[in-house]
């Protein structure tokens, strides 16, 4: 299949999502043609990746036909007209099962449509299916799953990152034009980094949480994953804005994110101050990641940005604060899976429980996986009255200190640059028995969640292949001021325009991205 955009009849999958929507609106392409191209690619290639939990071919084609019919009638089509998208499986869809990567919700058909699916559909998108994830979004590798773990399209024996690993893998391999992920501690940005795509976690409240299955409600945010900064901006512009169904969604006006991308691509970065916390680039950072990070800083400086040193004095406590707050909220949120109202239940078994407590315990013990149990138990520990002050209460105060650190740093700079992940993609199974090592891999991403700030991961090149490591993508993270996604997108677009990484596609046994 020709992936060269300059050939006479390029695969529609080589187009950007923005170009696809324009082509559908103008009648140059049909939504059916685009949708079929993606369904064919999924059928041919996803057997090697397992990025989809569920593919809704029939529904997607019916939806595509409806969009084509609307166009024939002369209706005005939306900004994602005919664009085939994939949703992480923690986004509630009324007509599609939503499992959240768990046996607990296997076969669950939600009784309502979530706001994210509704907004994407209103914008004209075609939903191809639901993408695999770590169970209840808890994980950094997609291995916390009762299903087949997702593979990284750049090296099939490597993890795609997590928890939005299915989305990142599918976007990288060209199995959806735009993907939706969620990010509680880096779950959009880290897999984007490991799979070589763009992933944006917006400001807390910029995008609604209504219809996104809760993990840690004060940290969770939905956001786009895409091959280019422009498509991430397009996705955000559709998702952002107040939602009457989520009281924490922000009413601040939504800026023109695509204009910010155009400004970054075409203009320079004079006057933009990029903060770098040198003290965070120490132990645990792979040499390859350090090298690509320094090269990215040079790219930004060449475009006119000024690099300034910043210090976040409580940064080294962020992982600890995060794993207290996130597990506390998770233990509370996941109490709803009790076998009484929906989802898996011991009450459906041949020998039903004889008491309510037995129903709870049997249902939860059988249908939650090991990592979910670990986090529920840790959350239970930190919320106990005798440990609350030393753990939860203290972590929430450290969170305030960290937010103040960021506020102080942003008096000196407009955004903070760092690696996204301290290491490139690791082998499946490598860290599975060491939860603390897995948690520490989130070191660069969790600060933005704790402080509620927007952050993006963009491709920053590849590690040099060596004996035990193939050529793997590496990401650059930019963290911005509250509600200043536009600056992140502008600077990201400038970096993208000056580097060749966005055009690279993975080739893997069983397919080519």
């Amino acid at each position: 299949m020709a992936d060269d955009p300059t050939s006479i009849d390029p695969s529609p999958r080589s187009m950007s999502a923005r170009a696809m929507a324009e082509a559908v609106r103008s009648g140059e392409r049909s939504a059916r043609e685009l949708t079929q191209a993606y369904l064919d690619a999924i059928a041919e290639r996803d057997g090697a990746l397992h990025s989809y939990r569920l593919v809704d071919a029939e529904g997607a084609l019916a939806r595509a036909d409806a969009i084509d019919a609307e166009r024939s009638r002369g209706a005005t089509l939306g900004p994602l007209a005919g664009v085939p998208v994939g949703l992480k499986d923690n986004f509630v869809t009324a007509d599609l099962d939503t499992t959240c990567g768990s046996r607990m919700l296997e076969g669950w058909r939600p009784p309502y449509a979530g706001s994210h699916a509704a907004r994407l559909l209103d914008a004209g998108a075609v939903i191809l299916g639901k993408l695999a994830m770590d169970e209840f979004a808890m994980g950094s590798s997609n291995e916390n799953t009762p299903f087949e773990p997702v593979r990284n399209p750049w090296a099939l024996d490597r993890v795609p990152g997590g928890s939005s690993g299915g989305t990142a893998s599918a976007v990288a391999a060209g199995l959806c034009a735009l993907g939706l992920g969620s990010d509680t501690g880096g779950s959009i940005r880290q897999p984007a980094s490991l799979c070589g795509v763009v992933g944006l976690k917006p400001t807390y409240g910029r995008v609604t949480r209504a219809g996104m299955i809760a993990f840690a409600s004060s940290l969770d945010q939905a956001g786009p994953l895409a091959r280019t900064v422009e498509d991430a901006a397009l996705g955000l512009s559709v998702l952002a804005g107040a939602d009457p169904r989520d009281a924490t969604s922000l009413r601040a006006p939504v800026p023109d994110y695509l204009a910010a991308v155009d400004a970054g691509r075409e203009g320079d970065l004079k006057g933009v101050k990029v903060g770098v916390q040198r003290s965070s680039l120490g132990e645990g950072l792979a040499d390859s990641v350090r090298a690509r990070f320094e090269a990215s800083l040079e790219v930004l400086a060449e475009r006119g940005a000024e690099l300034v040193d910043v210090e976040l004095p409580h940064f080294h406590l962020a992982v600890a604060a995060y794993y207290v707050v996130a597990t506390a909220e998770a233990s509370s949120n996941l109490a709803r899976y009790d076998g009484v109202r929906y989802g898996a239940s011991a009450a459906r078994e041949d020998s039903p429980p004889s008491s309510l407590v037995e129903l709870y315990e049997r249902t939860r013990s059988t249908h939650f996986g090991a990592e979910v149990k670990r986090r529920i138990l840790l959350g239970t520990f930190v919320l106990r009255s005798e440990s609350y002050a030393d753990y939860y209460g203290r972590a929430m105060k450290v969170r305030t200190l960290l937010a103040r650190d960021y506020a102080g740093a942003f008096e000196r700079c407009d955004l903070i640059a760092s690696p996204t992940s301290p290491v490139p993609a690791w082998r499946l199974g490598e860290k599975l028995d060491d939860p603390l090592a897995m948690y520490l891999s989130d070191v660069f991403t969790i600060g933005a969640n704790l402080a509620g700030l927007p952050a993006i991961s963009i491709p920053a090149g590849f590690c040099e292949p060596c004996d035990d490591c193939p050529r793997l993508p590496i990401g650059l993270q930019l963290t911005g001021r509250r509600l200043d996604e536009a600056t992140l997108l502008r600077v990201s677009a400038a970096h993208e325009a000056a580097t060749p990484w966005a055009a690279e596609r993975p080739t893997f046994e069983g397919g080519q991205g």
Partner: protein
Amino acid sequence: MNRSAPPEEMAHELAGLARLRLSDDEARSIGSQLDTVLAYLRCLAEADVDGVPEFEHESDEGDQALRADTPGPDGRVEAILAGAPKTRGSLVAVPKFKD
């Protein structure tokens, strides 16, 4: 919670509170992993948090973000009950919880 209790015992005790049941093997492995993570979390003690309030997200809305508190019919009772394992009429049925 007795932090000096053996990790396995701590795991069983927490599981009881969280309405989970662990096998002894699970309790051993989760207990020892929790012990490692809790040891790491003790680094929080080094922060000077005197007079520091617990974190709150900035909100530009205040209570205006809340919709009017007016009850009304939902119209989705059947769809919602369709997911429940046991129902009786328009109610969810549960095993006995009181003797």
